[in-house]
């Protein structure tokens, strides 16, 4: 119980944990999907406080980590072109591509800029009519409404020099892919609270019913996570498989309808390759026909290059939850947040970075848990 005193309400946390202790009669494996939740779980040591047999697997919910290598390589190729201003969220700059990263392009004189919002990239296009501004539109359902609005804004301003390199991914198809994997061990999911703030949770209902798997929409503060775990285990123990909402403070069943409508207008479903996981049908978004004019992939055709992952990095297994960062030979030595070899070490939301920040040592392995 070494971390418990750091909780904002240790009494409540203790009460929830002792309820879990008395509820859990069998081993269960839960997956949290959101990288922010992974960070809280690892940093607060929640996974280490759980009763014996209740295991947390860290899911693929880090947008930086799952952006396919091919897209990172494309971004690097486009950013290296003359006359291009390439804009991205900060953490994408250090993601290793096959032969370097966007920061390297910047160091070689490329005009690579960090923006806080995609609307800043639209403003750059307005201010630089003689340059091509390209925005790297990555992320889950949480960033999609923002990126969709930026495209709409550029279209309504008639900007011919603004395009987006779209690499959006969606959570429900990833959950289905994990459940379909022959070696799947996950018996319940904690769904990402802020993804559901946008999308609601109706999409999860058929999954919970078809796979008989409890899905609990959960926030990302320590008590939220413990409560989400308790709710999921209660369902498992009583044979229920429903979608429940722990994060009632911010999430409603149908989400944010305005944001959803804008996503539907600007984007359309596409198959998407997830870094380390592979292709998942209908798991991504691309621009819809009406907005194709703003597609950076058509505007800047890039030869499909052979992609090359680091040989030591086991990011794929980490994203699928079959290995832990501490199983990786490079963890904490050749690979650190300052010098990441793989994507999960780059962003604070990545599992390797979360483990490293929390000071997790090399000794823990899945078998030992």
């Amino acid at each position: 119980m070494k971390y418990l005193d750091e909780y904002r309400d240790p009494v409540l946390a203790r009460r929830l944990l002792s309820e879990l202790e008395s509820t859990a009669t069998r081993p269960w494996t839960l997956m949290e999907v959101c990288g922010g939740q992974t960070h809280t779980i690892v940093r607060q040591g929640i996974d280490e406080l759980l009763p014996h047999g209740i295991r947390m697997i860290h899911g693929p919910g880090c947008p930086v980590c799952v952006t396919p290598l091919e897209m990172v390589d494309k971004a690097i190729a486009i950013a290296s072109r003359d006359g291009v201003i390439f804009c991205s969220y900060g953490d994408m700059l250090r993601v290793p591509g096959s032969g370097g990263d966007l920061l390297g392009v910047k160091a070689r004189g490329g005009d690579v800029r960090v923006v806080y919002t995609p609307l800043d990239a639209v403003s750059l296009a307005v201010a630089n009519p003689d340059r091509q501004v390209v925005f790297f539109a990555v992320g889950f359902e949480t960033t999609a409404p923002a990126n969709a609005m930026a495209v709409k804004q550029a279209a309504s301003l008639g900007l011919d020099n603004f395009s987006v390199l779209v690499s959006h991914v969606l959570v429900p198809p990833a959950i289905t892919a994990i459940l379909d994997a022959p070696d799947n061990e996950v018996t319940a999911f904690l769904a990402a609270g802020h993804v559901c703030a946008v999308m609601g949770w109706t999409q999860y209902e058929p999954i919970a019913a078809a796979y008989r798997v409890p899905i609990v929409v959960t926030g990302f503060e320590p008590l939220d996570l413990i409560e989400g775990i308790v709710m999921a285990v209660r369902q498992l123990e009583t044979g229920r498989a429903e979608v429940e909402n722990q994060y009632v403070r911010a999430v409603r069943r149908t989400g944010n309808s305005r944001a959803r409508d804008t996503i539907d207008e600007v984007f359309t479903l596409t198959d998407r390759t997830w870094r380390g996981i592979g292709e998942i049908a209908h798991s991504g978004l691309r621009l819809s026909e009406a907005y194709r004019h703003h597609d950076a992939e058509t505007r800047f055709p890039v030869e499909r290059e052979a992609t090359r992952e680091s040989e030591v990095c086991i990011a794929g297994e980490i994203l699928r939850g079959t290995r832990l960062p501490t199983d990786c030979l490079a963890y904490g030595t050749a690979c650190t947040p300052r010098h990441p070899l793989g994507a999960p070490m780059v962003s604070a939301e990545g599992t390797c970075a979360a483990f490293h920040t929390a000071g997790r040592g090399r000794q823990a392995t899945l078998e030992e848990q």
Partner: protein
Amino acid sequence: MCLGIPGRIVDVAQGRPRMGTVDFDGLRREACLEYVPEAETGDYVIVHVGFAISRVDEAEAARTLAVIRAIPDALATELGTEP
């Protein structure tokens, strides 16, 4: 980039898209309020990459901020104050 940061709307501008200024614990940033048409000055909203996507109450905002502060560089990264 996916975390979402709660802040308080301190001013709403006219125009499309609907924009406003949001105070994140002392740091002020422009944010798009198009997706929270009901939110007004004084309300707390969760902001992702410059867009408010959900209204929350003040107590929740404070709790969420405390979590985000515990994640190294998260606030700076989310608000784009990193180099």
